[in-house]
């Protein structure tokens, strides 16, 4: 069967939309389905890959982003300090502030290994930094530690653990209501 919109590609998705009480049924190809504005919120029959991506960017997005109700494309991680998105960093190859190195730590570690072949500095350091290097981890706040663990979990693709850590961070940040809301949403989505 061909797609109801483009009439060119094979239809793979059965798409139902109820708008103002009126039911509309369509058979769509993946490309056209993705173009449907309301489709992103209707997760029923989308591919597993898409759901995973959504889930991942939701995890990252909910930590780095400012609001919950962002569109898919806006859920790229952002630096809390300067607000730059990781997309912008990728596009221009430059960070927005010193804090970005921690905000995007997982990606930074990965890309530094690619670009520089290493991700630990050896060499000159400022006098005042010499004593503080040992107390670096000790001085981390609870949220910062969780953030690190979370990024590691994502890297290992352990999404359940990631979700748990994310919730824990939320609690710490005093956003319990928000977490409950998200949980409900996820349950219906998965």
């Amino acid at each position, binding site marked *: 069967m061909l797609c109801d919109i483009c009439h060119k590609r094979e239809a793979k998705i059965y798409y139902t939309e109820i708008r103002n009480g009126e039911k509309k049924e369509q058979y769509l190809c993946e490309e056209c389905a993705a173009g449907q504005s309301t489709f992103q919120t209707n997760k029923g029959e989308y591919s597993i890959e898409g759901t995973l991506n959504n889930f991942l960017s939701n995890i990252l997005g909910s930590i780095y982003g400012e609001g919950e109700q962002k569109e898919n494309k806006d859920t790229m991680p952002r630096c809390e*300090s*300067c*607000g*730059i998105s990781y997309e*912008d960093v990728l596009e*221009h*190859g*430059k*960070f*927005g*502030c*010193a804090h*970005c*190195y*921690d905000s995007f730590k997982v990606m*930074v570690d990965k*890309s*530094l290994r690619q*670009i*520089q*072949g*290493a*991700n*630990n*500095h*050896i*060499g*000159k*350091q*400022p*006098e*005042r*930094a010499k004593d*503080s*290097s040992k107390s*670096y981890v000790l001085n981390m706040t609870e949220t910062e530690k969780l953030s690190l663990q979370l990024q590691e979990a994502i890297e290992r693709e352990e999404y359940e653990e990631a979700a748990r850590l994310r919730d824990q961070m939320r609690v710490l940040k005093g956003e319990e209501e928000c977490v409950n809301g998200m949980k409900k949403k996820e349950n219906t989505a998965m």
Partner: protein
Amino acid sequence: MRKWYEEEGEYSDVVISSRIRLARNLKKYPFSPKLSEEQAVALNHEVMEKLEDIKNESGTYLTCSINHMDEISRLSMLERYIISPIMVEKKQETGLMVAPDERASIMINEEDHLRIQSLTGAMNMKKALEEAYKIDDYIEEKLDISYHNQYGYLTACPTNVGTGLRASYMVFLPALDAAGNMTQLMNEAGKFGVTIRGMYGEGTKACASIYQISNQKTLGMSEEDIIEKLDSVVLQVIHQEQKRREHILNTNFSVLEDQIYRSYGVLKYAKQINTKDAMTLLSQLKFGEDTKTVTLEKPNMIFRMMMEIQPANLQQKLGKIAGSAQRDQKRAEYINMYLPELIK
């Protein structure tokens, strides 16, 4: 006061200069992509104020605003290696603090908040590094520098993070160039983490067989190791160039000698000459001088002339010149006048 390009030293027949650049950022401000106009102004003010007493052997640094200068002055500073191409283009508030002998400078609000630069003549990266460290240590006393316990000195671009160090040799490779070996050499150097670029660095074309050779990686190795690695590649390039020169001298001396004297003649008596031609001829003369085929009354003048005949420098030196035709005349006049006499 001797300028870096008048200095004799190790391998000065091939290596023109050794340059260190350290990238540093202040904790207080966001990096350049997120720096507002107001913050750029504040950054310039703060740096200039806190570092106002910085000096080297030649005296206290001179301070100036770059973005308020006219384009010719900016280009002229680029042609003399005082500022970078980014600084020429940047519209935001940018500043410069430079030692009177032009051996050391601090660029403010380039790609990073601070770019410390130190230059010496010939092959002497150790000295350039020592000088750069002195400036860096002084800055650290006065300003709060962004440093990460894992990643080292933080920079806007991750290609500079860690040491923030770019060590760069300017080399003269006419024999390798003539043999058509440069492309192969560039590829091979890349495998050792070393970049070979044109006379004015990133994105510029090679001109008159002058190249810049610098380290690619800045993280995971100490500054000394980075330089040692770079040196081992540069030494090989030097030896290849010297071997090639020897070969040319042994097999083609009379042709070469004729070419060098002809170049001298044209430079001495031409009535108009464009940059490219002048650079080619000066390059041949420099080759003659470096291989001792000819002896000039004033040594080490040729590279200086190469810088000074660049369009903006010439314009700066000789006042307002309208078009390129007029500039070509002025360039010829300048060369006629300053070309050192031959010692027969």
